[in-house]
Each structure stands twice: as C-alpha cells, then as structure tokens.
C-alpha cells in the first residue's frame, strides 16, 4: 500500500477497505483540520455568500411584511389554483431537509462509517431547510396572527382542530421533525463543543462553547449513555424521516383530486426527498470542502457515494413517474388519464419536461465513474437536481389544480413578483444560517471522525501486518 493515499475511490472492497480519511489522520490532525477554519479569518468567499444571503434575507423580510399587511392576494393564486408556490416551496425545503437525517440516522444504523465526514453539515442543512419550509405554511394561512389555530390549544371560541385531516398531521410531523433534528444535531455537537471550549483562546468564546458543551469531559461513563442515546435517536429518526414526507404526501394523496389521489405518493415523495436532499448536500459540500481545505476528510469517495445514492433515488423517482402514468391509463378513470396526459402535453408541458430532464435524465450520468468522481460534473448535476425537484412539486401542485372538473373554471397560474421574492428570500435565510454555522460550529463531527480512524481501534497495532486491512499508518 502506498504511504500517502490521495485517492480512495478506487478500492475493491474484496481486496481491502479504503481509508476514510486521507492524509493526516492523527487525532490532533483531525481536530486541527476541522477547527482551523473557525479560528482563521473568514475567507472572502464566505463573506460574499454571507452578504448575498443577508440581502436575500432582507428581501424575505420585506416580502413577508407586505404579505402580512396585504394578504395572500399578492401571490399569483387564482380560483382553481388555490395552492401555489407556498406549498411548492414548503415541500421543496422539507424534501431537502430529509438528507440530513437520512445520513445521520439511517446510514448510522447501517454502519456506513463514511457518514461521519458529512453528517454534521448535512444535519445543519436539515435544520435550516426545515426552518425555511416552516415559513411557508406559517404565512400561507393568510391571517398569520391566528396561525396558532393550527395547534390543539384551548381558545376563546372553544374550537379544536380536526385530527382526521392530513394537514393537521403535517403540522405535527414537520414541527416534531424539526425538534428531533435539532436534538439529534445538538447531541452530536456536545463533544465537539467541548473540543472548541478547550481550544478557544478568547474568554467569550471559551465561555459560550463551555456553556453549550454542558461541562462535557469525555468520561467513558458518559460516553456509554451518550452512545446509547445517540443510537436510539438514530432508531427513532429513521421511521420519523420516512413518516414526515409520507405525511406531506398525504396532504395531496388523501384529497380526491386527479393527479394527487394516488397510493404511490408516500414512497415516491420519500424517494424524491432523499434525492433532492443528497443533491443539496453535494451543492453545499463541494464548495465547503475546498474553501476549508477539508478534501482529505470529505474525500472523493464521500462524493462518489453521495452520487450513487442520487442515481438510485433519481431512478426510483423516474420509476414513480412512469408508474403514475401506467396506473392513470390502467385504472381507466377518464379524469385521471386526462390529468396525466395534460401534464405531459398540456400548457405546463414545459415544466413537466424540465422536471423529467433534470430528475430522471441528469442522474443517469452517475452510471459513469468519471462523472461520480469529478467535482465539476457533480456540482452541476446537483444544481440540475435541485431545479428539477422544485419543478416536480410545481408540476404536482399546479398542473393538477389548474384544470378543474368544470372547464369554465380552468385557468393558468402566473407567479407574481412576491411569489418569486419570497422564494428567493428563503434562500437568504438558508445561506445566512449556513454561513453562521460554518463560522461558529465544527462543520465536521470531530469525535465521530476520530472514532473511525485506524488508530481509534483499541486493538490496533500500527506496525503489525494485517491482511484484510487495506490501510496502513504509513507516513505518520
């Protein structure tokens, strides 16, 4: 084995496992690599992105203020299309949020050790995406000041929500998803906050990191409960993440509308959510790893694995598109068949074919190893997937609504300036939160990465020859 391995994407699992961390994989080296970007002056690129994010956040503030002042009439909603960009954006953001928990929980249960390099940032992405998502149902109720009616709270009208409505399930599912994601993320952060506490030079930083580290002292008696709690959180989050997008899809599937009323929606939505979330992970991690010099921790192999999941879930989504059409024809319901033919060839054909090209055709490039290991191709493809998945929600929502049962009420949906500005503004919130995260919190789970290095194994002997163990301590 070569002394310094710079590419871990070419290992045959039969011959030996590729190392997850390249270059300096000493414990101190990992701490240093992750913590340094927070201690060095912020790179210009990060400042620029933060500035753009702040401007967009301002746009969001203005858009929401005007919305609250004027009402949902400022959006392009019309009579048959009563659910427009607000629900599209909501589903788009919640979907993105799914990858974080998938990486942190499901890959954890499957003992996919490579998750440790990207789970922290992906979980942060989840939380910020859920925040962006929650804005939309929060404001599309129209009278924002009575949004608390969504919750089962005693009120002066002695009125209670209807627990048989999927919209109420959704309120519970998304808010609980957000809460559990924050708990999971914070639990993972505690040991790393302690690392930052012990590294910090500034008094204020030491105090703040120390406060949030809760006095963590790496005690093994603590680690024991901690690891058990983390495993259980992963076990709880796994069905939770699958349930959330299932329930989001119930918002549509439980209705009677052709185009929405299909049983394939829950698995199809979950696959789409994972698909879009992993694309967003690539969109974020490719610039972050080069900006912060983390290529040896977030390696080509991590990107390649992500691309493989995108290929899998993208193909699942493509299968779901095909199956919807098959059932629309096979089911023999005239309204259902019409809704689907109209999707493909009707006034929104442009949106439909954008969706298919981005979601079904683009990921097929990942059958090729060259594409899976080239950061530029990965980045561009991930952007296409993000666009495609937004269009998927647009197609589902708007094309199903715009042709009502009565042809006299047919209409075409045109977004207004405020539709666009609110959506762009939500990216501002996301970017600002993500930049702050990168600046003040360890973007890679330091303790977890250390635990998957060869030296972390208590039965590891640096100089022993180990036949089935593809790594070697080599140069250090």
């Amino acid at each position: 084995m070569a002394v310094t391995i710079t590419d871990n994407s070419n290992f045959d699992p039969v011959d030996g496992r590729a190392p997850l961390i390249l270059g300096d994989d000493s414990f101190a080296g990992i701490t240093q690599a992750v913590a340094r970007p927070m201690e060095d002056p912020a790179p210009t690129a990060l400042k620029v992105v933060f500035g753009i994010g702040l401007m967009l956040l301002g746009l969001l503030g203005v858009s929401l203020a005007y919305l609250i002042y004027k009402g949902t009439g400022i959006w392009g909603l019309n009579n048959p299309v009563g659910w427009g960009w607000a629900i599209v954006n909501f589903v788009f953001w919640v979907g993105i949020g799914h990858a974080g928990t998938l990486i942190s929980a499901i890959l954890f249960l499957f003992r996919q050790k490579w998750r440790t390099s990207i789970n922290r940032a992906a979980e942060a992405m989840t939380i910020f995406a859920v925040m962006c998502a929650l804005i939309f149902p929060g404001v599309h109720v129209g009278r924002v000041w009575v949004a608390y009616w969504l919750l089962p709270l005693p009120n002066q009208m002695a009125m209670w929500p209807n627990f048989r409505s999927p919209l109420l399930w959704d309120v519970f599912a998304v808010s609980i998803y957000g809460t559990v994601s924050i708990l999971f993320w914070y639990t993972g952060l505690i040991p790393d906050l302690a690392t930052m506490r012990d590294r910090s030079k500034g008094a204020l930083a030491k105090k703040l990191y120390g406060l949030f580290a809760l006095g963590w002292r790496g005690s093994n008696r603590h680690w024991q409960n901690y690891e058990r709690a983390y495993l259980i959180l992963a076990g709880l989050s796994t069905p939770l993440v699958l349930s959330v997008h299932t329930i989001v899809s119930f918002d549509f599937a439980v209705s009677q509308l052709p185009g929405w009323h299909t049983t394939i929606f829950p698995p199809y939505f979950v696959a789409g959510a994972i698909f879009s979330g992993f694309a967003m992970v690539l969109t974020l991690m490719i610039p972050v790893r080069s900006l912060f010099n983390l290529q040896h921790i977030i390696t080509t192999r991590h990107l390649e694995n992500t691309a493989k999941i995108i290929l899998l879930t993208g193909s699942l989504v493509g299968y779901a598109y095909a199956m919807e059409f098959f059932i629309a024809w096979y089911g023999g319901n005239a309204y259902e068949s019409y809704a689907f033919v109209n999707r493909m060839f009707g006034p929104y054909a442009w949106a439909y074919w954008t969706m298919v090209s981005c979601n079904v055709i683009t990921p097929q490039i990942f059958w090729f190893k060259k594409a899976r290991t080239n950061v530029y191709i990965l980045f561009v493809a991930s952007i296409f997937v993000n666009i495609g998945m937004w269009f998927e929600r647009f197609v589902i929502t708007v094309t199903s609504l715009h042709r009502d049962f009565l042809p006299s009420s047919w209409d075409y949906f045109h977004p207004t300036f405020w539709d666009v500005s609110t959506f762009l503004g939500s990216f501002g919130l996301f970017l600002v939160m993500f930049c702050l995260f990168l600046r003040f919190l360890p973007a890679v789970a330091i303790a977890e990465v250390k635990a998957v290095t060869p030296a972390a194994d208590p039965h590891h002997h640096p100089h022993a020859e180990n036949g089935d163990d593809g790594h070697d301590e080599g140069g250090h």
Partner: protein
Amino acid sequence: MSAHWGALAEFTTAPEIFHACEKVRDQGFTKWDAHTPFPVHGLDGAMGLSMSKVPWIVLVCGLTGTACATLLQWWVSVVEYPLVISAKPLFSLPAFVPIMFELSVLFGAFGAVFGMLALNKLPMLYHPLFQSERFERVTDDRFFISIEAGDPRFDTAKTVQFLRELGASHVELIDG
C-alpha cells in the same frame, strides 16, 4: 483522607487506555473513570460497566407519548368537539395513528437526550478535573484515567505508583 480530589493519569493511545482500564477494573476500584476524545470501542467492557439505562427511559417516555396522543385525539374528537366528517366514527383510530406515532417519537427523543444528560449529571459546568491543564487535551488527542480519592482503595502514594506502572505518560494529583 487527603485534600486531593483524586489522581489523573494520561495515556497517548487507544490500546494503552484500553489495557490500563482492564487493570484498574481488576484492582477493584469503583470511583474511577476513563476520559477519551471519542468513544473507544469496547471500553465499557474493559471498565466493567453495566448496561446503560437510557433505553428504559426512552421506552417509558415513548409510551407516554403514545398515550398522550391517543388521549388528546380522543378527548378532542369525541368529548370536547365532536365533528361528524364523511359519516366516520368520532373515534377514528386509523386517522389517529400518524399523530400517535409522531408524539411517541417526540417524547422518546426528549427521553433519550434529557435522560442521557440526567444520567450523566450534565450540565455540570465545573469539575475538579478542569483544573488540570493537560486535561484540556482530552477533547483532542489524549486519554485519561481518573481515580477519585473517595474510592476505598485509594491511597495517594500507592495509587499514583499503580497508575505509573500502567504505562501512563504522566500522572498528577488533582486538588479537591
């Protein structure tokens, strides 16, 4: 006894701390602990720890969540605000399953995190070990064993000697 809180021994690698823990365990110490930058695989066994109680807390909390969700939905839909929708029964159990599941997960997750913190007696922002400057590296790349002076087998001179013999790269006494 002494004015010391206990003794702290430093180790540099995971195998060292693993074998040292086995020996401390075999000596019959009870008030002692290992401190590591990451969870070292199998160290619970090397320390002779019994199973974590976190799963029981989660089970109780999760079932409480299920019960609360059932009660809430039943009370709202049957007692307080009965609404007949599509001629469905007032207590429509299948429709209540999603929220029963969600609340079980929520309560279970709270149980896991806060139960874990409670069992670990965290937050505890001050601890005698934080006096040691070397101990700052416990969150970076060093491994420690601490034995408290309150342990019946603790004897300042002998315990320090014992820790040295375990192969510790540095042993110090921590003030109480």
